[in-house]
């Protein structure tokens, strides 16, 4: 069975600090897909990134970067120079097959203070 653990329930930082959100997953499949979604206070789910299990390259997109390590079953998300607008709940999710359902972690609530 697939499982996603986000051990950090809440994180609070001051603007311009860097912050890393942890995600650890469990799966028996050798092919799987990992995702990060952002849920701002307005409630919608905003897609941030998708990673295939066979692509361990880290990715950077502006202030966002992702570190995928199969050896530790982790897919961590770093925000550099955080801003107040980054305040949201961030969910990591795992899908074991193409088109399959996603299983979400419990989410990490990030608060960025001015």
């Amino acid at each position, binding site marked *: 069975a697939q499982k996603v653990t986000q051990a950090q329930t809440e994180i609070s930082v001051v603007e311009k600090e860097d912050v890393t959100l942890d995600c650890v997953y469990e799966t028996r499949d050798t092919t799987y897909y990992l995702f990060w*979604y952002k849920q701002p206070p307005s409630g919608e789910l905003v897609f941030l990134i*998708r990673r295939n299990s066979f692509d361990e390259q880290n990715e950077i997109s502006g202030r966002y970067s992702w570190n995928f390590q199969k050896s530790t079953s982790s897919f961590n998300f770093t925000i550099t120079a955080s801003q107040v607008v980054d305040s949201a709940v961030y*969910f990591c*999710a795992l899908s074991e097959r193409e*088109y*399959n359902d996603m299983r979400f972690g419990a989410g990490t609530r990030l608060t960025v203070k001015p």
Partner: protein
Amino acid sequence: EPEVTQTPSHQVTQMGQEVILRCVPISNHLYFYWYRQILGQKVEFLVSFYNNEISEKSEIFDDQFSVERPDGSNFTLKIRSTKLEDSAMYFCASTLSYNEQFFGPGTRLTVL
């Protein structure tokens, strides 16, 4: 840019009543999903739908729930006899490929 839409944005109902939540997926998408999020909790998978039938469902999706794609554009979730614990945000999602599931804005269901 095409998007998934959901109606209504907020539904209030009495316990025991039937509700139908509606979704219009992105038009060329083939795979459809319902998720729910109880307030303050994680997003939970309910059901996936492909080729006019359920492809997978979770343990939450019991006999009280059903899904339908009645007219080739709408994708509905019906709850036959609502319970207090059905109060949640319900998200519809659709996808064409494995790149991402596109989520709708959600319907907040309140059962009194």
